[in-house]
């Protein structure tokens, strides 16, 4: 076991948890306002593809990151339009977005780069930097931290900001009110649907950053379906974290740890009988944990009361 529990495990956990944290926080805004966001997976893919394509042409990861945020916002706007204005079933719409973004990036990359589903490699100097790359010479003595991506740090900042916004600002109060009791919020003069639009678009922006991290942070190109279920894990973490920012981040770290262990234990860890521990069992952990949490065996996780119901003003 000692070979597994090293510092590198910690960093690999942070690395793997980063996109989860961003997507889950995106989901948090949307769901706290009462709109289910099953589409986190599709939003991650939209962000990842946009970031890689734009970075390839613009040769700057920051332009790519910005474009990913815009793309996430646009896709989220479509979701908001469908779910809020057209009162579409939120889960079905999200599922549609997820399938759409398996296909669309592949179609576009075929057209743009004549490849089957992936973007060209982006040179290392055009990827999102690590902390040491961003501030060279500033933190040499903190070698350990220097390999952490800027986006991981950004994710941490966003968690803290979200916590502040949610519990300490008028917007946060309105957001929570709209998700818990839209009728009362409406009676108090809060524009329910306006808040929901803002929240859903916010979830697109954050998931877009998460997607950008996948393609131009952790990796150096977009590949077909590269989110590989992370959007769903993020959703699970959101529930596990009871729709609260810091707890959600911790849940993401836990799931990131499970993922990191999967990678590190391959061929290393053995059962007492001398056999390999099948990776499939470690892969299952986050999902099984979520099911157990939802069933209330590890404390109750109560969703925002108005989650999933479109709001219609009474005439």
């Amino acid at each position: 076991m000692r070979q597994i529990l090293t510092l590198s495990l910690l960093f690999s956990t942070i690395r793997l948890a980063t996109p989860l944290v961003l997507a889950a926080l995106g989901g948090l805004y949307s769901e706290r306002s009462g709109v289910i966001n099953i589409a986190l997976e599709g939003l991650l893919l939209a962000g990842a593809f946009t970031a890689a394509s734009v970075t390839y042409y613009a040769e700057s990861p920051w332009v790519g990151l910005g474009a990913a945020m815009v793309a996430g916002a646009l896709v989220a706007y479509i979701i908001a339009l469908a779910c809020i204005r057209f009162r579409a079933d939120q889960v079905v719409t999200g599922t549609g977005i997820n399938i759409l973004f398996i296909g669309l990036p592949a179609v576009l990359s075929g057209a743009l780069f004549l490849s089957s589903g992936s973007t060209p490699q982006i040179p290392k100097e055009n990827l999102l930097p690590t902390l040491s790359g961003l501030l060279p010479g500033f933190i040499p003595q903190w070698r350990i931290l220097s390999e952490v991506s800027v986006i991981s740090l950004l994710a941490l900042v966003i968690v803290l900001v979200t916590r502040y916004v949610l519990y300490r600002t008028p917007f946060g109060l309105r957001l929570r009110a709209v998700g818990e009791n839209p009728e009362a919020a409406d009676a108090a003069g809060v524009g329910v649907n306006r808040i929901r639009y803002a929240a859903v678009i916010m979830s697109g922006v954050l998931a877009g950053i998460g997607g950008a991290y996948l393609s131009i942070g952790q990796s150096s190109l977009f590949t077909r379906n590269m989110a590989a279920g992370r959007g769903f894990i993020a959703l699970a973490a959101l529930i596990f974290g009871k729709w609260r920012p810091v707890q959600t981040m911790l849940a993401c770290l836990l799931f990131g740890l499970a993922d990191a262990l999967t990678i590190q234990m391959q061929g290393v860890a053995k059962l007492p009988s001398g056999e390999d521990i099948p990776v499939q069992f470690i892969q299952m952990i986050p999902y099984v944990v979520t099911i157990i949490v939802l069933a209330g065996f590890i404390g109750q996780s109560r969703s925002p009361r108005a989650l999933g119901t479109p709001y219609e003003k009474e005439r």
Partner: protein
Amino acid sequence: MKLLREILFPLLAVLAAFVIGGVVVLLIGDSPFQTYLLLIGSAFSWPDGIGYTLFYATPLIFTGLAVAVAFRCGLLNIGAEGQLYMGAFAAAWIGIKFAGLSGWILLPACCLAAIAAGAIWGGIPGLLKARFGSHEVINTIMLNFVAVALVSYFTQYHYKTPGDPILQTTPIGPGAHIARLGKFIPALPERIPLNVAFILAIIACVLVYVLLWKTKWGYEIRATGANPTAAEYGGISIRKQIILAMAISGGLAGMVGINEVLGYRYRYYDGFSANYGFVGIAVALLGRNHPFGVFLSAILFAILLRGGIFVDAYTVHVSKDIVDMLQGIVIILVALRPDAIFSGLKKVGVMKKAVSS
């Protein structure tokens, strides 16, 4: 108005998706007409086009029915993907374990195993919802991942031919093979994998129709879906209906394994599903959650799946991924509420001119 909603609206959704897809095709520099000709026309050649289209339609009919039954009970089963994997593996497992048995026993046993495994995997989220109130959408998504990992584990560690580089099980016994339709239709070559499972799919459509509209069980399922509170007042146990509907739904999804394992590959092949479980959601929605509609929309999506291969081969830029894209758009469009579309468009201003003139 009812006719409009049931038939015209799905057709409009498909048409609109094709128009949006056509614009994308045009933007990336191919001819939409040529693309759609390939995409749709390829399905109508005999015997390959029609044979393969119906073969692709078979799993979609099963998953479409699965989603539709759950929908009628007010549940969204996003877990057909996991349920079909469990069903397929269970069918293969029985087929391998009891490979020596006569087909008269082995074949029904394999079919039942597929249905039972799917039903259990669908029943679990039903039970969790009925017992703990936890949301079936999240649980079915989670169980998809668990199922994929579980069957992959069993395939890799216990049922693979040693040294086989492909993640697939050893073959099932010959008694468990289902005949290909080419055996009965002289003009259809047996190399086309269309098999008796397609006939089973049609029978399943009829049975689901009878179940939902001609039996007490079906009535109670629909009553629960239409208005759970009223159903409970009427003496229907909602919890029981939820578990029952999810189990039936899962069993239908598990039947995909009959087509895949018993009728096509004669072994379990890891990761075989082309998102059948998720496409099933589109199939059910487009088919208005009616078995007849499910059948038609499964055929439509199968045509696209078949045509995608030719789009890949014969166009310059467009790839078969356009099929996923079209499916996604169709799902989003059919999720919209018709009445909300009219009032929504009015608000946006698109309809203003049309209304005022």
